[in-house]
């Protein structure tokens, strides 16, 4: 073991593209699995669907915390991957998901031929698969990856971890082709891994041994990281990765205190549970910058501990009233589901007015208690194609549903939500406006500060709907959104010149895309190669233009 810089050369890579070509590596539409929004949260929203360009966070965290010189490849083609291997690396690390396993094996075979001296390690959630030792690789990271890689490279394993500054942009899906529509930049914060709730189905919890593994340990460190993002990149909006962010009371209490003392206008999105959210007065969280929260509702009759506490209906209503947008996720195929009560689940989810939703199939991931139970009940479907292992996969035999039936019902559920509530982006807008109406007369200056942020967001997104309501799914949704727009005009005034111009840009882009769709069909969003070199264990994001010609309105506020 040596504390001296190893200066080894490390290549960290994702699996290879393409993703959009149905073949032995990809199912139809597999490229959508790279995008939270168009595959999950706003998958049904047509031209109003959102899109993000998320980096492969783990690779940057690793590169930022080892002494070796590191090259990161994201979504290389096979040719790009081969060319990189030929440059000669001491270590190759490949991260993968279960559905990408066949690609992983091919990449390993290529590495052994092109660079036989390179030692191969693998990581990512795909490593929960069984029998991976049969791949004969030099290392399999099945725990927190930084300490694993440091040990593998003979570096000091327990020196402090430095969080890299990483950003991504959220935009209309259409804005990938039409960058003039703008985008919203967000900073990424990894607060911790694993979850002690240990729900039966939870792969993350099983992966980390039902334990919480903190990455950022104190409220001060969390707040100071936000300050760093603001100072170095001008980013004040964040997504915080942590399975149940509000569960860790000591850290959260201090974080809330810092936001009160320092008062910076940060906003953050996070994941939490009814259980943890029930422990706090919501206004305190709003004042600390809570702007979006993903809650695993799972079911109207959720049997899980994390769902105990306040009533879910009351909680969502209060979040909406404070302008906090939400993702509500449910699972189809729980033991008590039947055809009739599954639709009731969709209706219940819609009644919460979540800004976005996820409806997934029950998955029994490797290592989970659910898998052990279903195995003993002989309910695991054998011979499931690994490349078809994802949120909507049929991997469990259910007495009430035939093979493939749940998948179809899930897509019907998404469609039901869209037809009932309208596109996710319109729900964001309406929730922000609801919060604006609730909080604008507050006597608390920090709540009024939140109101100002909500006002900016409303003013940015209003124009997107100003001339496009004809494209909404039905008369009911159209009427509700028009009524909301009218009310916004009453309170905030008519669109100004910049908003009006932007509304016209959006209308034109939607019109052109509608015509193009008729001619050519859906656009395929195949990612490009992202290649990043990290020297001396210090990643700094390259200067990036603010998402094309960023307008003053749109998804930018």
């Amino acid at each position, binding site marked *: 073991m040596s504390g001296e810089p190893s200066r080894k050369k490390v290549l960290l890579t994702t699996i290879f593209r393409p993703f959009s070509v149905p073949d*032995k590596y990809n199912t139809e539409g597999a490229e959508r699995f790279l995008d939270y929004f168009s595959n999950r949260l706003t998958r049904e929203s047509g031209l109003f669907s959102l899109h993000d360009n998320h980096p492969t966070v783990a690779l940057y965290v690793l590169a930022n915390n080892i002494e070796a010189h590191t090259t990161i490849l994201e979504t290389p083609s096979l040719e790009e991957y081969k060319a990189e291997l030929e440059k000669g690396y001491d270590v190759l690390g490949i991260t993968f998901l279960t559905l990408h396993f*066949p690609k992983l*094996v091919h990449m*390993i*075979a290529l590495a052994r*031929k092109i660079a036989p001296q390179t030692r191969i390690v693998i990581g990512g959630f795909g490593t929960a698969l069984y*029998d991976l030792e*049969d791949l*004969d690789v030099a290392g399999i990271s099945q725990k927190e990856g930084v300490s694993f890689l440091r040990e593998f490279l003979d570096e000091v394993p327990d020196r402090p971890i430095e969080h890299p500054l990483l950003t991504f942009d959220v935009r209309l899906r259409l804005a990938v082709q039409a960058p003039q529509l703008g985008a919203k930049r967000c900073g990424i914060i990894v607060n911790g891994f694993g979850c002690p709730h240990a729900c039966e189905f939870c792969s993350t919890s099983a992966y980390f041994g039902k334990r919480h593994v903190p990455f950022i340990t104190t409220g001060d460190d969390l707040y100071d990281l936000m300050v760093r993002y603001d100072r170095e990149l001008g980013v004040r909006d964040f997504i915080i990765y942590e399975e149940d962010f509000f569960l860790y009371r000591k850290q959260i209490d201090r974080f809330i205190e810092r936001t009160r003392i320092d008062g910076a206008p940060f906003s953050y999105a996070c994941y939490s549970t009814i259980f943890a959210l029930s422990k706090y007065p919501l206004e305190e969280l709003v004042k600390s910058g809570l702007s979006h929260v993903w809650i695993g509702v799972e079911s109207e009759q959720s049997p899980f501990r994390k769902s105990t506490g306040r009533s879910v209906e009351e909680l969502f209503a209060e979040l909406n009233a404070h302008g906090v947008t939400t993702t509500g996720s449910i699972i189809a195929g729980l033991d008590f589901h039947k055809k009739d009560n599954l639709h009731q689940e969709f209706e219940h989810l819609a009644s919460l007015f979540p800004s976005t939703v996820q409806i997934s199939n029950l998955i029994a991931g490797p290592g989970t208690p659910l898998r052990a139970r279903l195995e003993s009940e002989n309910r695991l479907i054998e011979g499931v194609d690994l490349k078809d292992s994802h949120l909507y996969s049929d991997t469990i035999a259910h007495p009430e549903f035939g093979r493939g039936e749940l998948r179809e019902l899930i897509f019907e559920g998404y469609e039901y939500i869209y037809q009932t509530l309208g596109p996710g982006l319109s729900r964001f807008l309406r929730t922000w406006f609801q919060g604006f109406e609730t909080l604008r007369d507050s006597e608390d200056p920090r709540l009024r500060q939140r109101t100002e942020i909500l006002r900016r967001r409303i003013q940015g997104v209003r124009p997107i709907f100003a001339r496009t309501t004809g494209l909404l799914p039905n008369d009911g949704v159209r009427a509700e959104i028009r009524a909301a727009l009218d009310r916004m005009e009453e309170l905030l005034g008519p669109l100004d010149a910049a908003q009006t111009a932007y509304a016209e840009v959006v209308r034109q882009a939607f019109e052109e895309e509608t015509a193009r769709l008729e001619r050519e069909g859906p656009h395929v969003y195949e990612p490009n190669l992202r290649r990043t070199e990290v020297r001396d264990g210090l990643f700094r994001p390259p200067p990036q233009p603010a998402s094309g010609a960023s307008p003053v309105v749109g998804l930018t506020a």
Partner: protein
Amino acid sequence: MQDLLDRIVGLFASIQKIPVEQVDPKADIFETYGVNSIRAVKLLSTLEVELDIEFPEEEMREIRTLEDVRDLSRRLLASQDPVTKSA
């Protein structure tokens, strides 16, 4: 084409960590040697890289023996453009 079968048998033996002499190319690799899906994918992926061929998915599913692997590989090699093949 005995060389090709020898290569396949040798590769299979190294993946299974058994002596080459114990490998029966006519045996069902799943039933006789307890090959799991990972080892099967590893064998075929390695051959793809070594021989510069691509096994079609449907035909991969039909493979039961190493002779099946040899026959499929031979067919794919024969169907390749000779110029490409020699490159």
